[in-house]
């Protein structure tokens, strides 16, 4: 990692690259939305963003980034405002190619916890805000990409509570639970890109960012990581990417 960009910028740029043109993406506010907006401006002009506030096709106004999925800023210059329930139903019907989300706690099967820390749901050690639309995005999109800082306390062997299901306990348990579609394909972190072993559905290293060793990834992960047959090294963010990204958030509300 060079000194020309910070962790949030790296995350946003690498995440943006995951999106293809002529697709739809369900994006949460913060870095996921920034990444989607960057992809649309840079290489995917025919990408359509869907936001859980019930918004389709917004054009985020630089300098007025939304802090919630349900405010005027999120729907700025949208092409459709179908309402919250219907926005998710588009995903349930198969119209959303990629779900783009963050996560507080993530386990080796890609399951996410944003609900409670501690063993007793009703009297938790720490009450977190909750799922919002994350559970639905994880359940319903064709493919889910998680975007998150890579910290040992986030990457835990077993989450205290499965808020948003990915591969559950591996071995077909997702499908057995009635989740017939989708699942997490990649986890884009500040250290690299993780994927899942096609059989066991356990997390594996697929790429590292420049200057990051696989050992560094392991040291920052609370469970053993598998390795893909070939581990790539990501291209660092280009000046063009960083310039476009920074123009979207001149107040550095999410880029820090």
């Amino acid at each position, binding site marked *: 990692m060079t000194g020309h960009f910070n962790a949030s910028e790296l995350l946003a740029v690498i995440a943006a690259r995951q999106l293809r043109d002529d697709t739809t993406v369900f994006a949460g*506010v*913060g870095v996921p939305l920034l990444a989607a907006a960057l992809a649309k401006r840079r290489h995917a002009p025919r990408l359509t963003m869907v936001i*859980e*506030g*019930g*918004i389709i096709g917004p054009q985020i*106004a630089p300098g*007025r980034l939304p*802090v*919630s*999925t*349900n*405010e*005027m*800023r999120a*729907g*700025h210059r949208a092409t459709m*405002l*179908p*309402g*919250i*329930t219907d926005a*998710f*139903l588009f995903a*349930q019907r198969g119209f959303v190619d990629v779900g783009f989300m963050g996560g507080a706690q993530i386990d080796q099967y890609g399951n996410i916890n944003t*609900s409670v820390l501690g063993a007793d*749901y*009703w*009297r*938790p*050690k*720490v*009450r*977190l*805000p*909750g*799922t*919002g*639309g994350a*559970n*639905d995005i994880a*359940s*319903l999109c064709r493919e889910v990409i998680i975007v998150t800082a890579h910290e040992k306390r986030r990457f835990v062997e077993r989450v205290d*509570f*499965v*808020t*948003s*299901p990915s591969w*559950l306990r591996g071995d077909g*348990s*997702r499908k057995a*639970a*009635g*989740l*017939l*579609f989708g699942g997490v394909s990649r986890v884009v972190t500040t250290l690299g890109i993780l994927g899942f072993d096609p059989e066991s559905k356990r997390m594996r290293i697929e790429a590292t960012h420049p200057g990051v060793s696989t050992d560094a990834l392991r040291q920052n992960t609370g469970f053993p990581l598998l390795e893909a047959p070939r581990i790539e090294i990501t291209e660092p963010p280009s000046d063009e990417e960083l310039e476009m990204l920074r123009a979207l958030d001149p107040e550095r*509300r999410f880029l820090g």
Partner: protein
Amino acid sequence: MGDPRLNPAEYDFIAARRRTEAKTKSAAEKLTSLEDAVGRVKDGNQIGVGGCLFSRTPLALMREILRQRRRGLTLARNLTCNEGELFMAAGAASRVMTAWMSIGLPWGVSKILRHYVETGAVALEEWSHLALGLRFRAGAMGVPFLPALTMLGSDLVGVGGLKTVQDPYTGETLAAVPALFPDVALLHVHRADRFGNCQIDGYPHMDADIARAATTVLVSTEEIISDEETRRSPDRTVVPGFVVDALVRVPFGSFPHECYGLYEADYDHFAEYCAAIDARGPAAVGEYLERYVYGPPTWSDYLDLFGGERMALQAKRAKELTG
């Protein structure tokens, strides 16, 4: 499955229909005062709250509920903002049914949420965003459940007592999201005629479903329009008058939350509110209740605390974003 917190009365579509059948469904005038409208709310009621997070929250109606000192309420709202904190701190709500609660990313995890839930004072029943939306929609449709492909496999299943259903055609197993028939719906809308026909601009959120699912429907509106105006744009009406029990004209009725196209949410106010909590803990919400809820006798007095200049600025910002 079958957690005791999933109350059979919530999804009893037969009883809910009987209550609606027994209601007068009239095209009569519905205009009244906040005090009179909110007088219909009883201790222990389950309340479906319109808008979402800090958008179109029916704050004037909710403030009046706090002023009337209701207790033991359940609030059901997909994303719960600081209005939920006020209800917790006032001792008005003992249960909150939601998919997410806090003000918004920049203000971090709600310390008030943490305080009341971690101590067990308030039960927070978490459903996925879509599942709670479908609970209202099932209620609006008059059926006890809707099939869905969400929430399955997660630990949320056990929290709310979600059951499954087998599709009789393909044999597949789907989530059976139970209906929710709130006792009361609270909505804030852009405009309504005096007969209660309501129109909303911008985000529809879930207001139309919540209104149809509830037994009693209370609406505040930015503006009262003529019957003629409703009839000129009937395709803009989202709640018909016969569903509405009481209607109150309350300009800026969601402030400091937003109303699409009319005023933006007051982020600075949220920051001040959070700073006070950071400094003085949950007691700061008690002070806030005194200053903003119990103190000012009318909504107009309440708005004076913000001042016309700030409201004008938020109105200007809304125009810029949606114009």
